[in-house]
């Protein structure tokens, strides 16, 4: 029982950065009906770019606090370049094909990007930990956490709130929700669905890259992190309900806490605990926790 606070804090921390990634994934699915396997590669690209850029910045003697700005900029740049390139250059030729075919397309893209990242950044691990320790530590009872971790939590909350506000309060958000609801109808009322897709995918890519950029200082960035992350992101998004932003938050928390509990109490089950949860949720709620209602077919 003494471990409970640690379990919860660790769980929330883990959930935060997974949320940033998962929310982009679920957004892309909700609007475009594409389960983007390449999301993991975008995460990796974000991590690599951020680490490399921050490392460059710091090694050239610039202000350490500036490294945070560098991290964020790196994520933005990756998203703004990769997003449109992928959407315009590949995905838009595949719309209208079966959902599963689109998953396979993004899977192929994932394979390509994995190696592309290796070509660009090499295969050696990169660790730029300075931004992680820069803000000092926070002591809570017997637990000590770097302040940076809570910056991550704050970032996740910010992203969530910002997305919720945009979707519910702005005109752009309404348009997005219209497309999520019914693409054909949206086209019929004059919405430029093409542009909505481009914007959505780019935002999603930026979020994935942001997830990577924010976690880069906390871990050794190396080949394979994309693959690890994507299956977890799937689990979260499916658990939460495909296309539901609130679901992504709840899913992330659930997955984060379960994983944290496993790590603390029963490390052997860490790896599959998340999938057991996913299987259990799908058994109870076949379409996830916050799935959209079904429409009558006949």
């Amino acid at each position, binding site marked *: 029982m003494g471990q409970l606070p640690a379990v919860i804090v660790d769980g929330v921390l883990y959930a935060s950065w997974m949320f940033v990634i998962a929310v982009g994934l679920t957004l892309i699915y909700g609007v475009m009906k594409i*389960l983007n396997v390449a999301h993991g590669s975008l995460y990796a690209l974000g991590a690599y770019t951020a680490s490399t850029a921050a490392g460059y910045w710091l090694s050239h003697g610039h202000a350490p606090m500036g490294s945070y700005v560098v991290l964020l900029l790196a994520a933005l740049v990756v998203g703004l370049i990769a997003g449109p390139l992928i959407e315009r250059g*590949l995905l838009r*030729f*595949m719309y209208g094909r079966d*959902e*599963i*075919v689109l*998953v*396979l*397309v993004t*899977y*192929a*893209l*994932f*394979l*390509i990007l*994995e*190696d*592309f990242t*290796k*070509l660009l950044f090499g*295969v050696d691990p990169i660790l730029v930990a300075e931004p992680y320790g820069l803000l000092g530590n926070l002591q809570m009872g017997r637990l000590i956490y770097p302040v940076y971790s809570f910056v991550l939590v704050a970032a996740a909350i910010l992203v969530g709130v910002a997305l919720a506000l945009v979707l519910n309060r702005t005109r752009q958000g309404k348009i997005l929700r219209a497309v999520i609801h019914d693409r054909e109808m949206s086209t019929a009322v004059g919405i430029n669905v093409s542009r909505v897709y481009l914007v959505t995918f780019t935002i999603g890519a930026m979020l994935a890259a942001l997830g990577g950029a924010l976690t880069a200082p906390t871990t050794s960035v190396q080949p394979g992190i994309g*693959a690890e992350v994507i*299956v977890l992101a*799937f*689990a979260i998004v*499916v658990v939460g309900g*495909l296309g539901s932003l609130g679901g992504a938050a709840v899913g992330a928390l659930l997955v984060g806490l379960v994983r944290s509990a496993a790590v603390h109490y029963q*490390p*052997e*089950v*860490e*790896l*599959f*605990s998340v*999938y*057991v949860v*996913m*299987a259990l949720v*799908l*058994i109870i709620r*076949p*379409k996830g926790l916050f799935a959209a209602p079904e429409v009558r*077919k*006949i």
Partner: protein
Amino acid sequence: MKLRDTPLLLIVALVVLLAIGLILPQWALSFVSVALYLGIVVLGMALMMRTGLVSFGQGLYYCLGAYAAGTLDHFFKLSDLLLMVVAGALVAGVVAVILGFLLSKYRDIFFAMLSLAFSMILYGLLVKSSELGSTDGFGLSVKTFAGIAISASAVRYTIYAFSAVLATLFAIGMHRYFNSHLGRLAGAIRDNELRVEYMGASVRRVIHLNYVISAVLAGVGGALMAGAIGHVDPETTANWTTSGEFVFIAILAGTGSVAAPFLGAGIFEAVRTFALQYFPNTWQMTLGITMLLVIMFLPGGLWSVFGLRRRST
């Protein structure tokens, strides 16, 4: 291709394979064996795809088959190939019967994700299991077939020959299945489940059945692989990336012909071996690009190149 020609052609192919296998060098025997046992797995996937479902977790049964085979030798000193394959088929089959009750309720992305989840559960279990060698796995060897001892130099040919026989049997069986009522029902389910139910058939039962068949095939493939490679580990069997490879080959092969999975597996293995040797850091990219090209230009898979694509794909 007329209905009755295919089994004949397959048997001819088998005879040819068995004959030239006697003079092929070891590396060629290995290569063809890989194409055969991977092809068996993909044949099962083709059946599921015909039924409208793509599994992203076929590695679960491939792994179960492989580990069942390995366990027989490693823990029980039973190094019989026939026994290993039977064990692989049985273990995979039993698990599929159980999981099938659940999985037959899901479609599309959810089926794909749930099947993925179960394969990752097995992966996680194995990685953390020190008795089973965790990430390193363990080795095994084949010493007999149906009780008859095999000399060390003949093991490779035995595995090759047995794989060829099984592949032919399964291909012929699948061909006949596709042309039976149940086989046609699979395509109908993929097209319109509602109508199938409204005609009076149980969609779930057919899906469950086909799921078990494809699992058994994957289990056999895994057992053959274990015997051929002499080693089993979680990464190359249960990890989702392996399942992804099966999906890739299945797409490459298409669902039009029972021989296509074997050809697709052969091409895949050739590309992979070649790429791994000369471009170790870009072989995934090669795979990805090939997959995209196939998806974009050959929606019916390889078989559409030969113009022998059946209408129902």
